[in-house]
């Protein structure tokens, strides 16, 4: 499974997308992210399965007019 990795350096910073990892389980994804992105002393580091990301744009359909 593919995971997106998000992090912030300091409390109050925006949480940014910093890369991805591929892992067979959520538990391993957390460890891989910790080991692969250890260039900073992160205040916050998180992984999200790609399939759990809800796409907002592009592709959001225009609302249809009420013709019923």
């Amino acid at each position: 499974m593919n995971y997106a990795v998000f992090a912030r350096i300091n409390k109050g910073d925006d949480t940014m997308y910093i890369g991805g990892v591929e892992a067979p389980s959520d538990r391993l994804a957390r460890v891989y992210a910790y080991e692969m992105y250890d260039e900073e002393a992160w205040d916050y580091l998180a992984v999200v399965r790609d399939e759990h990301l809800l796409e907002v744009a592009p592709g959001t359909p225009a609302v249809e007019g009420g013709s019923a």
Partner: protein
Amino acid sequence: MSDDAWPEAAVDYVQAIADTKLLLGQRYAQWSLAAPSLEDDIGGASAAQEEIGHVRQLFRLLEGQGRDGDWLRGDRDPDAFANASSLDTPGETWVEFLANVGPADRAAWFLLDAIDHDDFRGMVDKMGEDEYFHLEYHDARLETLAAEQPEALQAALEPSLAGSLGLLGPASYDEDADPVFEAGFTSRTVADLREAFVDHYESLFADTDVSLDGVDWDAPAEDAWDASRRRADGGSISDADLVLLRGSRNEVFAIR
């Protein structure tokens, strides 16, 4: 560092932790370009660096207790290393490697975390931050291997778990018999650590196809156990390992 001399049994106890970490660093490094994924490679390389960092700190403390620095860093025979027996070889497969390093790393951490002495304050907390991710990695990887290759993993775990129990010490080392605990150097007995170790692995594999019924949970036999090397089988690393640990072939590059 305190001016106090540790009890002799405690010096051997810390030596076994340090030597096990030295071999863990070596085995992680050997597999760090041969793992099944880039993520495993990077994780192994990172763990190798962290283990060797721990070794440097522990060797510094052991030198303070009279152990010779050159001897610690490799000027000794293979059978003078007190590493967990499961680390005597790198393992022939990725499954064997994981089965060997996981329990050995956990046993070494249990021994280190049990130390209750001023010389280790703060240092063990920092090592624990590294170890959390080492042990989490092992367990997560062992879970995937239990699903993918249960028979191979079971076969590899049987000698490995018994060897790590040897590093922890004999089952009879309770409050009345554990010399390091009795000396006040540790806050938990070997018997207590063993119970936590066994519970951990029984729980980890409880809902998998890996059976631990073949593991010798009573190991090591106390009458065969070498207290200074914390093992019962008399084995050791190889001469080839010693060349790598000493860095003999790279001496020409040393900065003096």
